[in-house]
């Protein structure tokens, strides 16, 4: 099969400029409505539940979900589907455990909740460290992936791709703040869902509208093993540990948690999770059809020839079934996906610096509105430039493990402290700080010593820590450390405030 992938075609350039132009118009509109810190960080709490549901879905469905899972299903068959389920099940857990209390207690970041009744400075610093580490590793993985993808799809050199992504997303965040970022997510989520739905319909049309016919064709071409679990999860302990990281990692992703402050109240926060879960669930239910369709119609050999990891499966299928114009559309959608996710991450990273560190630690909560906004924008530029620089620095490196690392830190450092601060009266300042540090330190340490990094990257002979996914240990450790240290350092004032806090946690009285 001849493919025009890798050279810019008229249709891909057209769709690319249409999407960028549309998002910049939205940014211009949003910039005129972004004058206070609450507007910059939280879109003035004016986003509706349905809009936030779409934006959450946009923030979460990265290029890894779209290109990665369809490619995994195309090349490895069923194992890609196991991944898809893991990416979804965090959403109900997010709803049951933290969504509403988070909305009621916080202002702009999840650190607001952890520090609510504890000593501000140590807790803010620790929570910002956990948050920034999570966002940083996630950003590096996204930036490196985007450079490679854009090079493959448009033929633009890697470094230029980094600079283009970095500059456009900086324009969104810097001028339009959370309002522009939210609308960029909404536009991207709608385009992505439309694109994948069309691909699914085109595949099903080829197989008499019956998934069973498609499975039959997969089985005929690659054997029945393509439709059943293979080697991806063989050790039950490893499988559960990966599941824990995916499920509870979501509950500690700063850029996702931050979205809950954009809606007016806890009720809207709750509804937005339902919308997001429905949209993301729909996406993960249909994406395997795209993957299986690619395996049969395009062929695994063609997919691996263009990109060994399988990332170009969906674009190749789009070209085969919809021609060059549809390939242009899908490529532009993948590009918009990358832009939107990096924009959300940048806003979250910048808010940890400016709101948690500058405003709460350095200025001790006393800074003028103008000052706050200025620092937020400076932090955005710093974070954006770092993202571009790191993206270029890690060129050619295998950074796939960094997404796993981001989820492991989120599940081990951010989530335990957040949950304990909401539900446990005796949680203390020292307990929070040490729990976050133990979770972050142990998850980073165990991943560095794991087969993925110790053997895969550093080329040592044997891994010191045997598992690929440490969350089952690092998350447990963070809870144990948090509980033991809190019991050893009782904090009567924090316990007293817990009772007052309940009115805000459960009734939303005094919520911002």
């Amino acid at each position, binding site marked *: 099969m001849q493919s025009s992938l890798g050279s810019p075609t008229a249709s891909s350039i057209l769709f690319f400029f249409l999407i960028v132009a549309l998002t910049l118009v939205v940014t211009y509109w949003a910039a005129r409505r972004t004058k206070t810190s609450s507007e910059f960080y939280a879109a003035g709490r004016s986003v509706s539940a349905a809009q936030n549901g779409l934006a959450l879905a946009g923030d979460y469905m990265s290029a890894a979900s779209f290109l990665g899972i369809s490619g995994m299903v195309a090349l490895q068959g069923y194992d890609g*589907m196991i991944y898809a389920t893991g990416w979804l099940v965090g959403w109900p857990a997010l709803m049951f455990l933290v969504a509403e209390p988070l909305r009621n207690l916080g202002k702009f970041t999840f650190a607001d909740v952890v520090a609510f009744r504890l000593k501000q400075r140590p807790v803010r610093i620790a929570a910002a460290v956990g948050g920034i580490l999570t966002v940083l590793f996630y950003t590096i993985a996204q930036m490196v992936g985007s450079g490679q993808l854009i090079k493959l799809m448009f033929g633009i050199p890697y470094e230029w791709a980094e600079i283009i992504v970095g500059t456009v997303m900086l324009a969104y965040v810097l001028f339009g703040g959370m309002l522009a970022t939210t609308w960029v997510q909404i536009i991207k989520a709608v385009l992505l869902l439309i694109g994948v739905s069309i691909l699914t319909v085109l595949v099903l049309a080829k197989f008499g509208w019956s998934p069973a016919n498609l499975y039959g064709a997969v089985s005929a071409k690659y054997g029945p093993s393509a439709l059943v679990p293979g080697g991806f999860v063989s050790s039950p302990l490893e499988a559960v540990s990966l599941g824990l990281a995916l499920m509870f990692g979501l509950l500690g992703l700063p850029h996702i948690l931050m979205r809950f402050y954009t809606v007016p109240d806890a009720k809207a926060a709750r509804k937005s999770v339902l919308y997001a879960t429905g949209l993301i669930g729909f996406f*993960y239910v249909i994406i395997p059809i795209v993957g299986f369709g690619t395996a049969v119609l395009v062929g695994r050999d063609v997919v691996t020839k263009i990109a060994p990891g399988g990332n170009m499966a969906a674009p190749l299928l789009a070209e085969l079934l919809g021609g060059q114009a549809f390939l242009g559309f899908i490529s532009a959608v993948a590009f918009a996906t990358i832009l939107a996710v990096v924009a959300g991450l940048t806003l979250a990273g910048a808010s940890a610096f400016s709101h948690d560190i500058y405003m709460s630690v350095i200025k001790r909560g006393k800074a003028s509105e103008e000052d706050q906004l200025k620092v937020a924008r400076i932090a955005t530029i710093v974070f954006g430039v770092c993202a571009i620089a790191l993206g270029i620095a890690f060129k050619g490196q295998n950074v796939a493990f960094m997404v796993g690392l981001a989820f492991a830190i989120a599940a081990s450092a951010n989530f335990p402290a957040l949950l304990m601060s909401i539900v446990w009266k005796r949680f203390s300042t020292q307990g929070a700080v040490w729990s976050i540090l133990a979770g972050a330190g142990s998850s980073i340490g165990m991943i560095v010593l794991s087969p993925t990094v110790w053997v895969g990257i550093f080329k040592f002979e044997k891994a010191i820590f045997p598992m690929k996914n440490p969350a089952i240990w690092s998350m447990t450790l963070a809870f144990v450390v948090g509980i033991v240290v809190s019991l050893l350092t009782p904090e009567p004032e924090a316990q007293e405030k817990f009772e007052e806090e309940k*009115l805000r946690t459960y009734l939303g009285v005094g919520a911002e």
Partner: protein
Amino acid sequence: MKEAAPPVTPSVNHSPALGRPARGTRSAAQVVASPEFKALVKRRWSVSLLLLTLLFVSYYGFILLVAGDKTFVSQMVGENTPLAIPMGVGVIVFAWLLTALYVAWANRSYDPEVERLKGELHR
């Protein structure tokens, strides 16, 4: 345009059916200490934890089956369709249903009680 109606206040200060205090008569501490508030918080976490348990059973059950019993998940349940495929889709749909169940419960049972308790607070 009609003027906004003043908030409806029960004619009797004490609603005898519910045995609850009148609107705007309780302090924050009294509300937090009240049995109604405690029951609400307890119910919220019971519902959450019950749904979370169902989520755990379905997802980790799925993962453990897929990792542990390959013959079981490879059996055919339809034309060309091994059990593993509807199981994967089932986990996703079930997770969404649990979320919908929580929202339905919260809208019907949690929110009205929140409004009642908020109404009892001092202005």
